[in-house]
C-alpha cells in the first residue's frame, strides 16, 4: 500500500507535469525551436537510444565521482567551520565569494591548467559547484547543536570527532541529506558545464551540443529531459541511502 503510494505519487506528479507541458505547447502553438513538447521527444530518444545510454553513463559516473568528493570535502570543511568560530568567520566569505563566481567562466581556466585531463577536470567542476551546500549544512548542524546533546557524550570524555559522529551527524542527517539533494542537482550542472563549455566529446553535454549543431531541437530537449531523469535517479539513490543510514542508526550498533 505505502510502497505503491510511494511509487504512484511521484509518477503521477511527473505525468501530470508532462501533460501540462504538452498542453501548453499545443495551446500556444509553439514551434519546436521554441519549446518541444514531450510527444516530440520519443522519436529523438528512440533514434539515439544507444548514444543516450552511453553518454548518460559517462555523465553519471563523473557526476557521482564529483559528488562523492563534494561529500567528503564538504563534510570536512563543514566540520572545521562548525567546531571553530574563527574558521567560520574566516572561511565563510571566501567560500561565498568563490561560489558566486559562475563556474562557466572557471571551466576554461581549469581546462587550461589541467590540459587534456578531461575526467579530472569534469569531476573537479562537479565537485566545486556542489560542495558548498554540504559544507554549510554540516557547519550549521554542528554550530547549532544544543549543549544538552553535546553533554551526553562530552561527560564521558568523548572527543569532538566522536561527538560529531555519534550525535551531530545523525542529528543533522535530515538537513545533511537535504543539502545532498541540492548538491546532486548542482553536480549534474557542473558535469554538463564542462561537457558543453570545454567539450571533450563525451557525456550528455556532448549530445546536447551535437543536437545544437544540427538545430535538432527535439534532441536538445530530449537531452535535458535525460539529465532531469538522471537527476531524479540519483535523488532516489540519495533517498535510499537516507533510509539505509537511518536504518543503521536505528539498530543497536556493535
Amino acid at each position: 500500500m505505502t510502497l505503491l503510494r510511494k511509487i504512484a505519487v511521484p509518477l503521477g506528479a511527473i505525468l501530470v507535469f508532462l501533460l501540462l507541458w504538452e498542453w501548453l505547447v499545443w495551446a500556444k502553438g509553439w514551434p519546436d525551436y521554441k519549446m518541444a513538447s514531450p510527444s516530440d521527444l520519443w522519436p529523438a530518444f528512440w533514434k539515439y537510444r544507444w548514444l543516450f545510454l552511453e553518454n548518460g553513463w559517462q555523465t553519471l559516473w563523473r557526476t557521482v565521482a564529483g559528488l562523492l568528493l563534494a561529500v567528503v570535502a564538504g563534510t570536512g570543511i563543514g566540520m572545521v567551520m562548525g567546531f571553530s568560530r574563527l574558521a567560520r568567520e574566516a572561511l565563510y566569505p571566501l567560500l561565498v565569494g568563490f561560489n558566486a563566481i559562475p563556474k562557466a567562466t572557471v571551466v576554461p581556466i581549469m581546462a587550461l591548467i589541467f590540459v587534456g585531463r578531461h575526467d579530472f577536470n569534469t569531476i573537479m567542476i562537479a565537485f566545486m559547484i556542489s560542495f558548498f551546500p554540504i559544507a554549510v549544512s554540516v557547519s550549521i548542524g554542528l554550530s547549532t547543536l544544543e549543549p544538552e546533546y553535546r553533554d551526553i557524550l562530552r561527560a564521558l570524555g568523548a572527543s569532538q570527532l566522536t561527538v560529531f559522529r555519534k550525535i551531530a551527524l545523525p542529528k543533522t542527517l535530515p538537513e545533511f541529506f537535504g543539502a545532498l539533494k541540492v548538491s546532486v542537482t548542482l553536480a549534474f550542472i557542473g558535469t554538463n558545464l564542462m561537457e558543453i563549455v570545454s567539450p571533450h566529446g563525451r557525456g550528455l553535454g556532448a549530445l546536447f551540443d551535437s543536437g545544437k549543431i544540427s538545430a535538432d531541437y527535439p534532441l536538445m530537449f530530449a537531452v535535458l529531459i535525460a539529465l532531469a531523469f538522471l537527476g531524479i535517479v540519483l535523488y532516489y539513490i540519495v533517498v535510499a541511502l537516507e533510509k539505509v543510514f537511518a536504518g543503521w542508526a536505528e539498530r543497536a550498533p556493535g
Partner: protein
Amino acid sequence: MSAEIELRAVTHAYRTETGPLPVLRHLDVKMPPGSFTAFVGPSGCGKSTLTKLIAGLMRPDEGQVWLGGQMVRAPRATVGMAFQNPVLLEWRSILSNVLLPLEIVPNTLSRAARLDRARELLALVGLSEFEEKRPSELSGGMRQRASLCRALVHRPEVLILDEPFGALDAFTREDLWQTMARLRAEERFTAVLITHDLRESVFLADEIVVMSARPATIQYRMASRLPAARDLDILYTPEAVEMLATLRRQIQIAQGRDAA
C-alpha cells in the same frame, strides 16, 4: 572501582548579559570512595551546576574539583551521569541509547556482553518490553529510567544523578531506590545524588548536604545514622524520622524562611 570526590573552595558564577550571576560560593566537600552523598536545596540554587562541575563539563571560576586524586580539567570516561532533563537520541532505540556509553568509553566487552549488560539494566528499571522502542514512544518517567540505565551501563567509578526519579510515582520510585541500593553494593561507585525528595536522600545517602539559596553555600551537613543495609521500613524508624525533621527545618532556613 570507585574514586574519591573532593570539592576545594569551589566558586562559580554564570556570565549573563546583565552581569555575572553568582551560583556557588566556596563549596568544600570531601566524598570518600564508595560513599553516597545527596545534595538537597531550593530550586535554582545551583545543584545542577554542581553536577556539571564534578563531571568536568565546566570549570569552576575558583577552586578545584578532584576525582580519585586527580584534578578535574576535562570530563573523563569513568563518570556516569544522568541529567536532570533525560535527553535520549531519537534516532536510536532505547536499547541502543543505553549502549551509547559503551561505544565511547574504552572497554573490552564483546557485543554480546554489552547487550547483556544493557538488557539487564533495562529489566531492573522495568523497561524490558521497550528495548526496541524509540524515545518518543516512552512516557516521561520511562525516559528518565532509560537515562538512568545509560548512566550506569559502563560501570562508572563515579555516578552523578540529577533528580533521577523526579517524574516517577511513589511506588516505582521506591522500587528504584531499592534497585540503586543493590547496585551500589555490587558495583561500588561513588555516588552524587541531587534530589528534592528528602525521604529519598535519607534512604539512599551516607551523607546529606543541604545547600542554601543562590549563591549556594553549604548550609548543613548530616551524616546518616542509619545502618548500611536498609529496606523501606527503615524510613519509619525514629532515627529516620528525626533526620527528616532536621532536614525539613534546614531547608526551610535555606530558603530564608524562619525555621521557627
